C-alpha cells in the first residue's frame, strides 16, 4: 500500500480547490491537489459571463456596495440561503477580484467616453467618466440591482482558472492530475484523507492528511440535458455521503439555465441577455415582457426558465427534431459587440449549429431551451466550510452547500463563490490543518484501501445481463423527465422508485474487459452507483419538499411555504446497503436574519405562505435601523448590529470604492 502524507489534501482542481490550496500552501502547509483532469481543463473554464463583485466602477454600477449585493443574493436565493454566509461572501468578493487582477486576470476595463449599449431592446448611449478609466468594468446579469458582473469578454472562467492555476504553480502547490478519490478515510468522526485511484495506472493509493477539502464541483451529469462538463458527476458529494456521517444539503435545489443551445446543451452565457439579447417565440414575438413586465429577460434564472417552458406549453414553442424550443436573438446588439464581447458564443453557434448570431433577423436566432446548469446543494458545511458532522472534512465551491445560494443562484455568483470560498474556507481549512495532527493508524488506512481493492474485484466478477451505460442513461432520463424544471408528487415518487431499482441493477452488470487500468467501463461501473445515490438525494428531497422555492418548483404545491418549509434538507446514507437516503431538516432562524423573508420582486405575487416571525423580525430590524441612523451610525455599523459575521485574514477590512466620499 502506497501512502502519500501531506498536511492539506484538496480533492478537485477547479477554481475553488486551487484557490483553497494556495491559501493552505501560503500558510506553510504541504498541500496536494488531486484532479480528474489537468487542472486547467476543469469545468470552471467553461464559465463565460462573469463574476459578481460590487466594485461600483462603471456608470451603470455606480453606487453599488455590499448591501445591494447581499440583498440581491438573499432575494435570488428565495430566502433559502444562510444570510451570514451571504454576508461573508459579498464582503470578500471585491477583494477576490482585486487579488485576481494582481495575479494577471485581464479583466475588461472601463474606457472613458461614450459607448453604445442595448438596454431593454433599445439602443442607448452610456458615458463613462474620465476618473474611472482603466478600472475593472462590469456588465448586467439577471436579478441584480446594479451592473455588477465583472468579466473578460465571454471567457471569464478560463482567464480566472489560468490565473489561479498559475498562482498555484508559482507557490509550488503539488498538483496531481488524473487521480480520482473514490472513498474518504475516516475514523471516530474525523476525516483523514482518501483512497485514490490513479486513472492512468489503475493503482490504488492512500492520501492521508490533517484536513481534507472537497472541491469537486456539481452533479449536473445525473441529468440527461445539462450544460455541465462530462466530469461533473457528483462523485465528491457521493464519497462524502458514503461515509454515513457527512450530510448533503438541499440536493433538490437544482438550477436550470434558460439559454443552452439545442441540441448540444452547450451554454450561451447569461451575458447574452445581460448585454441586451432577447427571447423570441415561434412567431418571432418577444414574450418575456408579457410574463415579467419589470425584469423581462433579466428576471432570475429559475423564473426565466419556467416562463420559457410555460410559453412553450401555451403552444408558442418552435418545433424541431429535438422537441420544442424558443429563440435567443443577440443580433440586435450589433456585429461589432458580438465579435468582441460574445465571441465564444458566436463560435459555438457557428460550429455546432451553423448559425452566425450576428446575422440580423431570424437567420441569426439561436435555438435555446432550459437545461440543468447548477447544483445549489452539496456537502453541508458550517460558515467555516467544515462539514457539520464529519470533523476535518471541508468543502468549497459548487460541491459544497456553504449555502449562499439557497434555492436559486444568481448568475455571476458561482464563479465568484469559487474564489471567494477558496479564500475564506481555504484559510479556515489551513488553520484546521495547522492545529490538528494525523492520528490514524496505518492498519486502519490499509483497511480502507483493501475494501476498495476488493470492491473493484467484485465489480469485475459481476456476471449479469445489464449494461452500466444503459443504467446511466436511464438515470439521466428519469431525472430529466421526472425531476426537472416543473415537478409533482406522483412523478417524483416514480423517480425515487425507479432510481432505487437502477441502484440494485448496478450489481447485475458485466464489465467486458477485466483490466484494472485503462478500462473506461470499469470506471463507469464504480461511478454510476455513486451518481445514483446523488440522484436519489435530489429526487427524494424534491418529493418530500411540498412547496415551491427558487428553482424547486412543484406544480402541486405552487407556493413558497415559509410557515412549514423555511429549512434546509439534510441527507445521510447511514447504511451502505440502504437504497435511499435518510432525510432530516434543519430550520432557518428568521429571528437571526438581517433580511426576513418577503417578496422577491419578480415571479408571481401573493405566492407565499408567510411565517409569523417574518413580520416580528422585520419590525425589529426597522426599529434598530431607524434608531442607529438617528444616532449617526454608518451602514457598516448598522449591519454589524443586525447580524454579525466573521472573516479570516484581513478580509473584514472595508472595501475601498471610486465612489467613496
Amino acid at each position: 500500500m502506497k501512502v502519500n502524507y501531506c498536511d492539506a489534501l484538496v480533492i478537485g482542481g477547479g477554481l475553488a480547490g486551487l484557490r483553497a490550496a494556495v491559501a493552505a500552501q501560503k500558510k506553510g502547509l504541504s498541500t496536494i491537489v488531486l484532479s480528474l483532469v489537468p487542472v486547467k481543463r476543469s469545468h470552471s473554464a467553461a464559465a463565460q459571463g462573469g463574476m459578481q463583485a460590487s466594485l461600483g466602477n462603471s456608470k451603470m454600477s455606480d453606487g453599488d456596495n455590499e448591501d445591494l449585493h447581499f440583498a440581491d443574493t438573499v432575494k435570488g436565493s428565495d430566502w433559502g440561503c444562510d444570510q451570514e454566509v451571504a454576508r461573508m461572501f459579498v464582503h470578500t468578493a471585491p477583494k477576490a477580484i482585486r487579488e485576481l487582477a494582481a495575479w494577471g486576470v485581464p479583466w475588461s476595463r472601463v474606457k472613458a467616453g461614450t459607448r453604445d449599449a442595448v438596454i431593454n431592446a433599445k439602443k442607448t448611449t452610456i458615458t463613462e467618466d474620465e476618473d474611472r478609466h482603466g478600472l475593472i468594468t462590469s456588465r448586467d446579469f439577471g436579478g441584480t440591482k446594479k451592473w455588477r458582473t465583472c468579466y473578460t469578454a465571454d471567457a471569464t472562467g478560463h482567464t480566472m482558472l489560468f490565473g489561479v492555476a498559475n498562482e498555484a504553480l508559482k507557490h509550488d502547490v503539488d498538483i496531481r492530475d488524473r487521480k480520482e478519490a473514490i472513498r474518504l478515510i475516516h475514523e471516530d468522526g474525523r476525516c483523514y484523507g482518501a483512497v485514490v485511484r490513479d486513472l492512468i495506472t489503475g493503482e490504488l493509493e492512500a492520501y492521508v492528511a490533517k484536513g481534507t477539502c472537497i472541491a469537486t464541483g456539481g452533479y449536473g451529469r445525473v441529468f440527461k440535458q445539462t450544460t455541465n462538463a462530462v466530469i461533473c458527476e457528483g462523485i465528491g458529494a457521493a464519497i462524502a455521503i458514503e461515509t454515513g456521517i457527512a450530510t448533503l444539503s438541499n440536493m433538490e435545489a437544482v438550477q436550470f439555465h434558460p439559454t443552452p443551445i439545442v441540441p448540444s446543451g452547450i451554454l450561451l452565457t447569461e451575458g447574452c441577455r445581460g448585454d441586451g439579447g432577447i427571447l423570441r417565440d415561434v412567431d418571432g414575438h418577444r414574450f418575456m415582457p408579457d410574463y415579467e413586465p419589470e425584469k423581462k429577460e433579466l428576471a432570475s434564472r429559475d423564473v426565466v426558465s419556467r416562463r420559457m417552458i410555460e410559453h412553450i406549453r401555451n403552444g408558442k414553442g418552435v418545433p424541431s427534431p429535438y422537441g420544442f424550443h424558443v429563440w435567443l436573438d443577440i443580433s440586435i446588439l450589433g456585429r461589432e459587440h458580438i465579435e468582441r464581447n460574445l465571441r465564444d458564443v458566436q463560435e459555438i453557434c457557428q460550429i455546432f449549429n451553423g448559425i452566425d448570431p450576428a446575422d440580423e433577423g431570424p437567420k441569426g436566432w439561436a435555438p435555446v431551451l432550459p437545461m440543468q446548469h447548477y447544483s445549489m446543494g452539496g456537502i453541508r458545511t458550517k460558515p467555516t466550510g467544515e462539514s457539520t458532522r464529519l470533523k476535518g472534512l471541508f468543502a468549497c465551491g459548487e460541491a459544497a452547500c456553504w449555502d449562499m445560494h439557497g434555492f436559486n443562484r444568481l448568475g455571476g455568483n458561482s464563479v465568484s463563490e469559487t474564489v471567494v470560498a477558496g479564500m475564506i474556507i481555504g484559510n479556515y481549512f489551513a488553520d484546521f490543518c495547522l492545529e490538528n495532527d494525523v492520528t490514524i493508524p496505518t492498519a486502519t488506512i490499509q483497511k480502507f484501501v483493501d475494501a476498495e481493492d476488493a470492491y473493484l474485484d467484485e465489480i469485475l466478477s459481476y456476471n449479469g445481463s445489464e449494461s452500466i451505460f444503459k443504467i446511466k442513461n436511464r438515470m439521466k432520463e428519469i431525472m430529466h423527465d421526472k425531476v426537472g424544471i416543473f415537478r409533482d408528487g406522483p412523478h417524483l415518487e416514480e423517480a425515487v422508485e425507479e432510481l432505487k431499482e437502477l441502484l440494485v441493477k448496478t450489481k447485475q452488470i458485466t464489465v467486458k474487459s477485466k483490466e484494472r487500468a485503462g478500462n473506461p467501463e470499469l470506471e463507469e461501473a464504480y461511478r454510476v452507483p455513486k451518481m445514483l445515490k446523488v440522484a436519489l438525494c435530489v429526487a427524494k428531497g424534491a418529493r418530500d419538499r411540498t412547496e415551491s422555492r427558487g428553482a424547486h418548483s412543484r406544480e402541486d404545491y405552487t407556493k413558497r411555504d415559509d410557515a412549514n418549509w423555511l429549512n434546509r434538507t439534510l441527507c445521510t446514507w447511514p447504511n451502505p446497503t440502504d437504497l435511499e437516503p435518510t432525510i432530516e431538516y434543519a430550520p432557518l432562524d428568521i429571528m437571526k436574519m438581517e433580511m426576513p423573508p418577503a417578496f422577491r420582486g419578480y415571479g408571481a405575487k401573493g405566492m407565499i405562505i408567510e411565517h409569523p416571525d417574518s413580520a416580528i423580525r422585520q419590525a425589529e430590524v426597522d426599529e434598530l435601523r431607524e434608531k442607529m441612523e438617528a444616532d449617526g451610525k454608518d451602514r457598516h455599523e448598522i449591519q454589524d448590529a443586525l447580524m454579525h459575521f466573521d472573516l479570516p485574514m484581513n478580509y473584514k477590512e472595508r472595501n475601498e470604492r471610486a465612489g467613496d466620499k
Partner: protein
Amino acid sequence: MSNEQKGREITISVLKFNPRSKVSKPHFVDYKLEETPGMTLFIALNYIRENLDPDLSFDFVCRAGICGSCGMVINGKPALACRTLTSSYPEGKLKLMPMPAFELIKDLSVNTGKWMDKMSKRVESWIHSNKEVDISKMEERIDPDVANDTFELDRCIECGICVASCGTMLMRPDFVGPVGLNRVARFEVDPHDNRTSEDFYELVGDDDGIFGCMSLMACEDHCPKHLPLQNKIAYLRRKLVSLR
C-alpha cells in the same frame, strides 16, 4: 424531419494501443455507425464506447471547445474532436489518431497535462511582481486596450494542437513549443508582470526556445482559438535577438 429518416453510415477508424499492456500492439479498428444530425466526434465516440467498444479510451471534458481536452489527429490534421462535425467529411470516413509529441496513455488519450505543467514551470507562467497589493484598496488601473491585448493572448486553452502541428517539435523534443512562446508573449504584454526582455531571454533565448521556430505556420493554421502565434513569435524573436 421525420423520425424514420436514416442518416448515412459513417466509418470511424481509430488507432488502438495500450502501451502499458505486454500484448497490445498499435492497430486500427473500424467502427460503423449511423450519422445523426449535428453529430460531433464527441457524440460519435461516446456512441462507440457505449454500444460497440467499452474499452475505447479518449478524453473529453467540456465538449464545447473551451477546455482543450480532446485534441487528436483527425484525417491527418490535429483538431478538437468536440468541435468536429462528422458531416464535414463528405466521404463519411474519419481516421483518428492520438496527437504526437505527447506521452501516449491509451488509444486516443495523451498526457497533455504533464507536458503543459513542465512548459508552464519552464517559462514561469505567472505574474512576477514585487509590489505588495492591498486587496481592500482600489485596483491598479490598466488601460482597457492593454487589458484586451493581454486577454487576446490569454485565450490559449493548452489543447496541445499547436505542439502536435509543430515541425520543430519533431526534431527538438525539448522545444518549448508555440504554446510556451505565446505564454511568454502574454506576460510580456501584461503590465502586472515586471519581467524585462533580459529575463525572458534567460527563459527562451535559445534554439529550444524562440530561435528554434522554423516558421512553418502549422501551429497558427490549426490553433482552434485563432491565436496570432506566428506574429507574436516573430515579434519576440526580433525583440530578443537584439539582446544577443
